[in-house]
């Protein structure tokens, strides 16, 4: 609705739109995953902390997908993008759609994403696109807390009891193959980087690995050698089977009662 009716699909800034979907879909899918813990977390304090994190991520989703909808200019809203697209139109990383598993797996997934998210948002504060820099400036404060909390919990549980250590190591082993996708650059990343809007994701790899190594060392956890990476989430080429199941939960209300609002 923001752009004149004369705007055509041909004028769509495809690369920018896709980048914004990637940002918004990451926060939407992870936000929904984390919200699945609401009422189920091991202790009250973690339950509320996870709910806060989920709400932060959903709030960021409103900004990213809201901007995506504006850029698209087809009259769709952030809600339309979130609730009325199907699996193949999502552009989130495979990492964030992975099931919650046990609490350790949830926290490990959170830390692995939070660390990347923080580095990316810090860089996006200097984006040539003021709208993106603005969203990043707001989100980076929330994510700074997310990573502080998830890192400390990874350390606490990793360097904890025999059982918590075992669970955290298993979570790390399970999720490690999903780390690489965050740093794979494609033609959209290349175009965004050339235009000064977004950093090349590959440039975040070194600081990420350094931060991760420090946390894992304190957590007495070890990462297997090898850089195999599952891919296909951010390009939409091949999501894991988990995303479709998640969307049936997340989207059922809008699907069953189109346009329902409260």
């Amino acid at each position, binding site marked *: 609705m923001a752009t004149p009716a004369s705007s055509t699909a041909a004028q769509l800034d495809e690369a920018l739109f896709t980048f914004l979907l990637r940002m918004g879909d990451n926060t939407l899918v992870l936000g929904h995953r984390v919200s699945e813990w609401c009422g189920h977390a091991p202790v009250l*304090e973690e339950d*509320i*902390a996870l709910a806060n994190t989920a709400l932060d991520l959903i709030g960021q989703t409103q900004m990213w997908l809201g901007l995506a909808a504006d850029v698209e200019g087809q009259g769709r809203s952030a809600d339309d993008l979130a609730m009325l697209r199907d699996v193949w139109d999502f552009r989130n990383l495979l990492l964030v759609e992975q099931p919650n598993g046990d609490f350790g797996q949830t926290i490990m997934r959170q830390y692995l994403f939070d660390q990347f998210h923080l580095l990316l948002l810090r860089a996006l504060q200097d984006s040539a696109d003021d709208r993106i820099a603005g969203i990043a400036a707001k989100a980076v404060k929330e994510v700074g*807390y997310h990573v502080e909390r998830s890192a400390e919990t990874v350390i*606490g549980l990793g360097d904890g009891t025999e059982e918590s250590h075992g669970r955290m190591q298993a979570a790390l082993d399970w999720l490690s193959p999903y780390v690489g996708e965050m740093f794979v650059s494609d033609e959209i990343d290349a175009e965004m980087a050339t235009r000064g809007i977004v950093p090349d994701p590959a440039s975040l790899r070194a600081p990420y690995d350094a931060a991760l190594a420090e946390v894992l060392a304190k957590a007495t956890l070890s990462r297997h050698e090898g850089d195999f990476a599952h891919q296909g989430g951010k390009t939409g080429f091949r999501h894991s089977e988990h995303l479709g199941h998640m969307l049936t939960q997340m989207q059922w209300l809008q699907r069953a009662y189109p346009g329902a609002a409260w």
Partner: protein
Amino acid sequence: MSDAKTEWPLWEVFIRGQHGLSHRHVGSLHAPDAEMAIKNARDVYTRRNEGVSIWVVEATQITASSPSDKGPLYEPSESKVYRHPTFFDIPKDVGAM
């Protein structure tokens, strides 16, 4: 749940609502250490923008007066009205105190 070793210690949480006010006791929570207690307090007690500063104290570190000592501790002051500063005329120039 009766095994004490599986429970995190209890922490009492104090929050200062705004600059210039003192910290007030707002409740308690469980956490494995002081740093996590601060984080948990942030998540449990300041999610509606309630505070600018948090103190946490492990509950076992607090020494409390005993309710059974109420008589000797407090009753002697009940009859000493002269300890209230209400017997002085405050000059008008002083204004509101």
